[in-house]
């Protein structure tokens, strides 16, 4: 991983390391396919509860996590499957968790909105909007106190810009030069409300007010997300403090799987426009095939392999047993 990221700084977009970008493509496909199956599980009433799909935003999670080491930290959101998979979670244990099974990442006790996998640096998804801002910043503080060079990434949607906690911790992160990147995934909608109705002023100006370096980029371009994050992560590792990265992106589905009739807050044309012209998977595929870096058949094979992995993972989750009833009051206290 270190070797790969070091060489990437010297590479121009035209001279991509094909192997790495195929790996990135595979990860994005995995998230897309995973979410398709998660939606299917909901529609067939196999999955308990609701879930928030990440489809459309894949380039953000994958681009950011590709710039991180396994021991670096992330905190995730209610729309968190993409972050978990990008940081290294496996689809079978993810499906098991979504289905409330003992084999799941949290023994079925967390569910879709609470997947945590400390082994891959994932400190947990969070069902409180902006709720993990303190945790991620505290992990960065801890890394600094322990003298490790770990970096923390706090993922949140633009909806979290309404939460005061974020501003309290950005202030401290800047004051103490903590190694943290605040990644704001601006998918345009605070649940069912366009962000322009909920947000005054400029997004990046919020971070700049604390003296935090801030950028806004196209979150559909995985290469751009990766290269920008890599630069910000290196900066943080050198002790130069936090950064704020706004990634402009789009969620293909509704706020959650049950949000099917959406025309009262956004048009079908708008959804089609993003799917047709700004799909992160298509954009990368075009770059790879169009630039003659690989053949379409190679990409097709990746999709076929991933589909089979996701299918198997889903079946694993379906077949896995529920936790024993005696589990209900275990793990309340350590």
């Amino acid at each position, binding site marked *: 991983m270190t070797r790969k990221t070091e060489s990437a700084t010297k590479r121009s977009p035209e001279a991509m390391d094909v192997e790495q970008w195929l790996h990135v493509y595979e990860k994005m496909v995995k998230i897309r396919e995973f979410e398709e199956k998660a939606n299917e599980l909901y529609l067939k009433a196999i999955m308990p509860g609701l879930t928030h799909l990440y489809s459309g935003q894949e380039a953000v999670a994958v681009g950011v996590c590709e710039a991180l080491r396994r021991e670096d*930290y992330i*905190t995730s959101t209610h729309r968190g499957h993409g972050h978990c998979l990008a940081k290294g979670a496996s689809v079978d244990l993810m499906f098991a968790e979504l289905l409330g099974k003992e084999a*799941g*990442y*949290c*023994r*079925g*006790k*967390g569910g879709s909105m*609470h997947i*945590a*996998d*400390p082994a891959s640096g994932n*400190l*947990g998804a*969070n069902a*409180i909007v902006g*709720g*993990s*801002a*303190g*945790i*991620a*910043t*505290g*992990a*960065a*503080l*801890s*890394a600094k*106190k*322990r003298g490790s060079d770990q970096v*923390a990434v706090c993922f949140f949607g633009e909806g979290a810009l309404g939460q*005061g*906690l974020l501003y*309290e*911790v950005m*202030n*401290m992160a800047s*004051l103490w030069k903590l190694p943290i990147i605040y990644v704001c995934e601006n998918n345009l909608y605070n649940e069912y409300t366009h962000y322009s109705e909920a947000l005054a002023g400029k997004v990046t100006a919020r971070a700049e007010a604390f003296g935090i370096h801030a950028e806004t980029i196209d979150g559909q371009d995985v290469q751009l997300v990766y290269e920008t994050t890599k630069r910000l992560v290196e900066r943080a590792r050198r002790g130069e403090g936090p950064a704020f990265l706004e990634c402009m992106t789009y969620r293909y589905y509704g706020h959650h799987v049950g949000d099917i009739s959406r025309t009262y807050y956004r048009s079908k044309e708008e959804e089609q426009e993003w799917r047709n012209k700004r799909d992160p998977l298509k954009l990368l595929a075009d770059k790879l095939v169009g630039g003659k870096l690989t053949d379409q058949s190679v990409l097709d094979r990746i999709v076929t392999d991933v589909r089979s992995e996701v299918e198997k993972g889903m079946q694993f989750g379906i077949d896995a047993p529920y936790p024993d009833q005696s589990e209900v009051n*275990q*793990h*309340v*206290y*350590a």
Partner: protein
Amino acid sequence: MSTPEREITFAEAVREALAEEMRRDSNVFIMGEDVAEAGTPFKVLSGLVEEFGKERVMDTPISEPGFTGMGIGAAITGMRPVIDIMFGDFLTLTMDQIVNQAAKIHYMSGGKMKAPIVFRTTMGASRRSGAQHSQSLQAWVSHVPGLKVVIPSTPYDVKGLLKTAIRDDNPVVFIEDKMMFKMKGPVPAEEYTIPFGVADIKRKGDDITLVATSSMVQVALGAANMLEQIGISAEVIDPRTTTPLDRQAFIESAKKTSRAIVIDEGYESYGVTAEIASVIADGAFYYLDAPVKRMGAMNVPIPFSPALEDLTVPTEETVFQMAKTLCRRD
């Protein structure tokens, strides 16, 4: 103990516990408002920054949810933070972080993660501080699974319990009565800890059980002295921790005395007293000669005027009167 006992204040006992644990474990650090040079407005932490430096006694901006959340992030990644929340009333500002995050991390992660963190805060009225600096909110946090809650009543207890809290692998809310910081009591110079969930009989008695917490322990002991004058022998039991709760200790005492009053400075409605009273009513039902009574803060925002504030908290006199009534001596 054969050697003459050393006496120190409640605040000194807190400071000693912190200093000893910080020397013992380099992962322990303190974070909060005015904790370093100022040593908090109550001067409880005076001297710690001089020994441990500003990296381990960290002054923060006035951002309770922010530094509380950061403490949790540090706790789940290997540190053992002690978060200083100046007034118990400010717990309300940190509730998402303590209740939705810290308390649930271990369970929601299926036991994979743990948050060893102490939230030190205060409680108690009668300081003429008004309604937003006088509440005793232990019931709020005692209500939430995943948190442990400590409400110590003596210098000896606060030292031993705080050391246990810092070593515990769970989030612990540690609530100290502001009015007690200057109170002196015996504290051995030797190292000791006190386990959670073990009530302490502060005074033995046969006729009535007074279960009292934190600030109310001294009130109950005062009332017990008054009761002794009229021939009523009161037993005073201090739970020391509301979570875990030493249910059996109250039940056994009430079985012996057949009468009980539960006294806590939190609001009387839906409070700690309600929980403990129900434990006694349930566990000692066939032994009781009178209904279990509860005494807490009056259900009003704590008023500023001394003439009004003093009416809101149980006193030796009101506890004495209630006990006399229960023992049919009025």
